């Protein structure tokens, strides 16, 4: 299947603005934090300290960092199950994210969500959601609420390219365009829905073209370049905030690891050569080299940054390991508002 030749807006490589050096270095720090965090999470998973599924984000860091940097404190964010990176980039404390992976009470979802369900309402981080595409209508609902209340908020939704083939995606984007909602849909196209390559699942190759069905603004974005990602997202957010028009961003990225910790980096569905080739555009290397080339960072500075981040991750790891489990009575809290429910099939009540 050939890549479409349909003309459309593409993010142009932008020049560096030296006045924003601190901000740029902040992005790099966040990307490195996500990378080191994920490596540590993978290690902890192998040691049995993290349960369930664990979907690593390694290789896609520039997407979360570049896009979330454009948002304000009141905006709403929803993600899929591969959301550790977004949670960290949004500013959920590293300790709280790691503790959640460990299932501890100090976790950002009190140990009840786990890897796929990170939440922080105070940051508008309204969840990792684990049914493919199921959260896209939720994000549309948040954009609807912003319009209903006439606020200036934007609802941003991250999902993988596999989600665009299901009904939730179409229904949600149709309504967002129909009702002119302040929404940004970010498709992180990492080429593989679990082990199924895009061209084996999708009748069209260019996901951005899906937006044409709804007459919706769209862009194809290089997700391995944080500056390009930031610029494209900035346009989309302004379009949502000022013009009340939604946007679909198709972000071309790549995951260097398997779909989850249960599948190898390469295997039946992709080759070692392909992964190695993609690693040449590691977003962290791309950005750090750019900053060094522009004179906004030097090698000792990069090393120091890395050391700082490694320490932060190690601290989070120690914190998570030592943090207590939720108390046994927490089993029955948070099912309903207010008091805990009775177990309908539980033991006899006292007479």
């Amino acid at each position, binding site marked *: 299947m050939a890549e479409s030749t349909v003309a459309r807006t593409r993010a142009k490589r932008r020049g560096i603005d030296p006045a924003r050096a601190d901000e740029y270095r902040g992005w790099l720090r966040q990307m490195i934090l996500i990378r080191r965090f994920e490596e540590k999470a993978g290690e902890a998973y192998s040691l049995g300290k993290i349960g369930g599924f664990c979907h690593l984000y390694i290789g896609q860091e520039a997407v979360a960092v570049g896009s979330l940097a454009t948002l304000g404190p009141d905006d*709403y964010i*929803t993600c899929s199950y591969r959301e550790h990176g977004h949670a960290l980039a949004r500013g959920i404390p590293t300790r709280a994210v790691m503790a959640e992976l460990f299932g501890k009470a100090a*976790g*950002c*979802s*009190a*140990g*009840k*969500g786990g890897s796929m*369900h990170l*939440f*922080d*309402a105070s940051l508008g981080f*309204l*969840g990792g*959601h684990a*049914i493919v595409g*199921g*959260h*896209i*209508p*939720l*994000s*549309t*609902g*948040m*954009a*609807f*609420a912003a*319009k*209903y*209340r006439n606020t200036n908020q934007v*609802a941003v939704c991250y999902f993988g390219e596999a989600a665009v083939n299901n*009904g*939730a995606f*179409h*229904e*949600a984007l*149709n*309504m967002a365009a*129909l009702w002119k909602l302040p929404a940004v849909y970010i498709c992180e196209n990492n080429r593989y829905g679990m082990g199924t390559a895009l061209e084996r699942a999708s009748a069209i190759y260019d996901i951005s073209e899906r937006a044409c069905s709804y007459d919706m603004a769209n862009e194809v974005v290089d997700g391995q370049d944080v500056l390009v990602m930031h610029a494209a997202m900035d346009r989309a957010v302004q379009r949502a905030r000022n013009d009340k028009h939604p946007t679909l961003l198709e972000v071309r990225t790549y995951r260097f690891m398997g779909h989850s910790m249960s599948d190898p980096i390469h295997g039946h569905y992709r080759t070692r050569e392909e992964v190695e080739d993609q690693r040449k555009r590691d977003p962290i290397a791309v950005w750090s080299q750019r900053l060094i080339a522009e004179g906004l960072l030097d090698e000792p500075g990069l090393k120091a940054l890395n050391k700082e981040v490694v320490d932060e991750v190690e601290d989070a790891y120690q914190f998570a390991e030592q943090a207590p489990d939720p108390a046994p009575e927490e089993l029955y*809290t*948070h*099912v*309903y*508002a*207010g008091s805990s*429910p*009775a177990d*309908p*099939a539980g033991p*006899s*009540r006292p007479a």
Partner: protein
Amino acid sequence: MPTLTYRDALNQALREEMQRDPDVFLMGEEVGVYQGAYKVSRGLLDEFGPMRVVDTPITELGFAGVGVGAAMVGLRPVIEFMTWNFALLAIDQLVNSAAKMRYMSGGQIGVPAVFRGPGGSALQLGAQHSQAFESWYAHIPGLKVVMPATPADAKGLLKSAIRDDDPVVFIEGEMLYNLKGEVPEGEHVIPLGKADVKRPGKDVTIVCHSKTVAVALKAAEQLAADGVDAEVIDLRTIRPLDQEAVLGSVVRTHRCVVAEEGWPFAGVGAQVADTIQREAFDELDAPVLRVTGADVPMPYNKQLEKAAKVDPARVIAAVDSVLYRD
């Protein structure tokens, strides 16, 4: 007290709640310009405008999800399903999103939404339009399931459902919309989770809800003529189930029949029967019997359809059995 139809009682509840709270809005297929497929939303578009009475495309999954998302950030949506049969397309949003959001966020995010519309069978609508799904939703921790049987209950329970901080599955009886009854004006609120004694009696307890309340009352009337004093308990809320009301009645009557429109397998009656045998086994003078819809997809043929439905004769037969009169 004014007499209203079940339909108009629901309309009144919606209107009053939308007047009271600007965060309450109605969304669904044909709720606005068309005035509601069953006319429950008649007049609301004129009064509240298109931002609060929102016509949607035919996309149950999509607009149910929009409702959940809006509720996650504090609005109080009332999502109308044209029928609960169509809501099957949205069940992922109710089960995987609405019901679990509070729990998996560690208590941070609630979903104060109401999902409502007609359920159960009407007349000769065939298998895909004649289904009672309350046991499906009642199975899910995190959801509440409410089913009013009378106009007054329809108003009082819908107002409570809208004010509730949890997702409520509110199933209206498709055959009940024209039912008339006295409805209190203004603030009339019935707490969720409280059953109602629709007819007191001492010989046998008939537990029912929604459409089968009228069936049970008719059966009780005929039984009374035959010297049997039946108590009719309307569950009103399936989840949380008012175990105390059911058990209290069984302790007085020692016999129980559960009547419901749904299929028998893993139905609401199974839960009620389990509760009774667990909590009041020694009080029973006969096994708890269940009268349910036939365990088949609903046939179109009028006579077959009649045979598939719960009617007073079948309730009476079950009562006769628990009284050992058969």
